[in-house]
């Protein structure tokens, strides 16, 4: 019997080509576009074109489906998106962490709600336009995830939280192509979205300005505070914990006669700590929400390469299981800006071993350098 696949369609070139490839491969294909976000303000609504869920994008996806002769549906996940992604995004920043909303969207929207929807439609698979490779590894008896062949587009990092059950029902037809090949295919399939630019922004943050977004939504909860140096001296004032991220240099409003960076954020004391380039480096961290893909579980330390943010290069390290289910990671070389809240993905070459979320950087000194000498609130 013909296998049935739901393609998650954003209206962009990648997911459109995904749908075309699945159709060409002989699947029965259904396109679905998730409606995730819409500004509350009716005046903003009419002009909202951002991200991957505006009305224009829904129509683009629908046109592609019409062209391919497949049904298309728009599903409304706005309520869930608000609770699972936007609320998490705000909460993390308020805790002094740096969230990755696109990963939360993968975990809670695409590979949970949408996958369930696909299975409810009688589909065997959910296919997405991610640049990654998913295979069944006979020797391991597990579904494995590998880097996409296009090194600049590889998206295996954002998929490192996927479970076996999710991978079992997922296809990534673009993983073995480069982006330019995908655009070329879009052209050959006659899809008019072939030249549509890649989306770069977080879909619910206008102009990439997350600070204004958070300020607008939780103005009353944000307090100003002091900025300290690593010795615990007050060197300035900050505008509120959520507006800073580890490694940040710009917008600190400090003139200390040397370049300084945010090296620590301490929400309990409403404190931001700055230091020199050397203070942004770290070699150890603890991560939670651990998910293993290539192995069933971690029982002893392993040597892998780890990537601590989407743009970072994988770096050699040793991962050690902790008793509480978390892992301890020690890099061979110091890493810049280990940031709590970000995903850490573990690799063995091209193979994704697993993923986790950075809980904290372990500082070289035993005691906390930023113990404020005065009350923290100005």
């Amino acid at each position, binding site marked *: 019997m013909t296998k049935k696949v739901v393609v998650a369609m954003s209206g962009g070139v990648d997911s459109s080509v995904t749908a075309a490839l699945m159709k060409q491969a002989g699947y029965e294909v259904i396109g679905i576009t998730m409606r995730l976000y819409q500004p509350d303000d009716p005046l903003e609504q009419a002009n909202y074109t951002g991200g991957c869920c505006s*009305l224009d994008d829904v129509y683009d996806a629908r046109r592609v489906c019409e062209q391919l002769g497949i*049904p298309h549906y728009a*599903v409304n996940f706005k*309520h869930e998106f608000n609770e699972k992604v936007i609320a998490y995004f705000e909460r993390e920043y308020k805790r002094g962490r740096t969230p990755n909303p696109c990963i939360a969207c993968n975990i809670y929207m695409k590979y949970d709600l949408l996958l369930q929807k696909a299975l409810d*439609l*009688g589909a065997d698979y959910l296919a997405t336009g991610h640049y990654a490779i998913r295979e069944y590894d006979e020797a391991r008896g597990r579904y494995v995830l590998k880097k996409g062949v296009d090194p600049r587009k590889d998206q295996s990092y954002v998929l490192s939280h996927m479970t076996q059950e999710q991978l079992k029902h997922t296809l990534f037809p673009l993983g073995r192509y480069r982006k330019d090949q995908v655009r070329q295919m879009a052209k050959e399939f006659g899809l008019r979205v072939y030249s549509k630019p890649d989306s770069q922004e977080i879909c619910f943050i206008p102009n990439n300005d997350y600070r204004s977004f958070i300020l607008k939504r939780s103005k009353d909860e944000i307090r100003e505070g002091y900025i300290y140096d690593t010795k615990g001296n007050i060197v300035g004032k900050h505008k509120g914990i959520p507006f800073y991220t580890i490694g940040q240099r710009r917008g600190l409003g400090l003139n200390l006669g040397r370049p300084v960076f945010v090296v620590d954020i301490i929400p309990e004391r409403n404190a931001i700590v700055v230091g020199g380039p050397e203070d942004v480096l770290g070699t150890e961290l603890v991560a939670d929400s651990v998910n293993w893909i290539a192995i069933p579980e971690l029982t002893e330390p392993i040597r892998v390469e780890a990537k601590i943010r989407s743009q970072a290069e994988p770096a050699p390290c040793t991962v050690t299981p902790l008793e509480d289910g978390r892992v301890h990671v020690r890099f061979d070389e110091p890493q810049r800006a280990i940031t709590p809240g970000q995903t850490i993905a573990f690799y063995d070459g091209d193979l994704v071993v697993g993923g986790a979320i950075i809980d904290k950087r372990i500082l070289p000194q035993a005691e906390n350098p930023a113990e404020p000498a005065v009350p923290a609130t100005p």
Partner: protein
Amino acid sequence: MTTIYLDHAATTPVHPDVVAAMVPYFQEHFGNPSSIHGFGRKVRLAIEDARETVARALGTEPSRIVFTSGGTEADNLALFGPAFAHRGAGKTHLVTTEIEHHAVLETCQHLERLGFSVTYLPVDRTGRVNPDDVARAIRPETVLVSVMYGNNEVGTIQPVAEIGRICRERGVYFHTDAVQAFGVEPIDVATLPVDLLTISAHKIGGPKGVGALYVRRDVVMFPHLFGGAQERKRRAGTENVPGIIGFAKAVEIAMAERAARRERYLGFRRLMLSVWEARGIDYVLNGHPEAFLPHVLNVSFPGVDTETLLMNLDLAGIAASSGSACTSGSLERSHVLKAMGLPPEVVGSAVRFSFGPANTEENVREAAERVAEIVQRLRRRK
């Protein structure tokens, strides 16, 4: 696989006789009805004949009919028109219900932004408004009450005559949106105490983009489109001539067939329910047990998600709906079912089937069978 269309409350196919009536008015009789010359005069007469047909169907005179671009515009005009005309006299309050069509609800919300206040009346579990609530909500500064005739999502018919009497006693305008009721319910404004009444062409086999507002003689209202003397200065703009001609033809056909259609639709309704009962499918019937529009059947299948069910139905060739969809085709949670105070599992699993003249017993039965299969499959998956 044959497709079965059961979404006539959303829109209907245009009747072939309607198309035939419209065709000459695109090229042969293309004139502007406001023109002095023969091209225009010819069309003017046709429009006034059409107006008479629509007026007669409602039990009124032609001068009381304002053609609009559809039900939405008629609803907007019915609220904005009187509200702005009487604002200077301190009339700044309106009364409506929580289950109105968005054409009324969002107009009310905009009036609130402009400084008016609006009371949104609740409904009971069957979707009915209590006329006593209307009486209690009317204040000295109330200008207008708007309560729909029959609900588009669940089909519940409102006690419009009683509400109209209350409004008349209290000296406030009464508007009713009769878009869904027109064509299946007997509507006679000569006896029904209503001041403004909205109807639409495309729900009764007419073309999209044309509707009408009945305006009783002594209603004082402002127009909301300016720039011409059309529609007795109540709605400026060159008339949608083919649309109006088609509308009148559709009204003519619907009036002639009204009683027969009612019986057919009631039969379809019983048929679907009997198929589900025979197959042991649990369902909850939404709406009023007696006062309902015959073509609207709203049922919930607890445990099955509305959106998932509708997508599965579409894949199985059945066009149904959950009430009002937004432009993208994705669903919003029904404000009507929520206002009825139904439990979340009933609200979240409701589907609307709505019948039309082209449906047959065979295809309605077939649709009910396919629904049963899908509901069983989805319930097994849980």
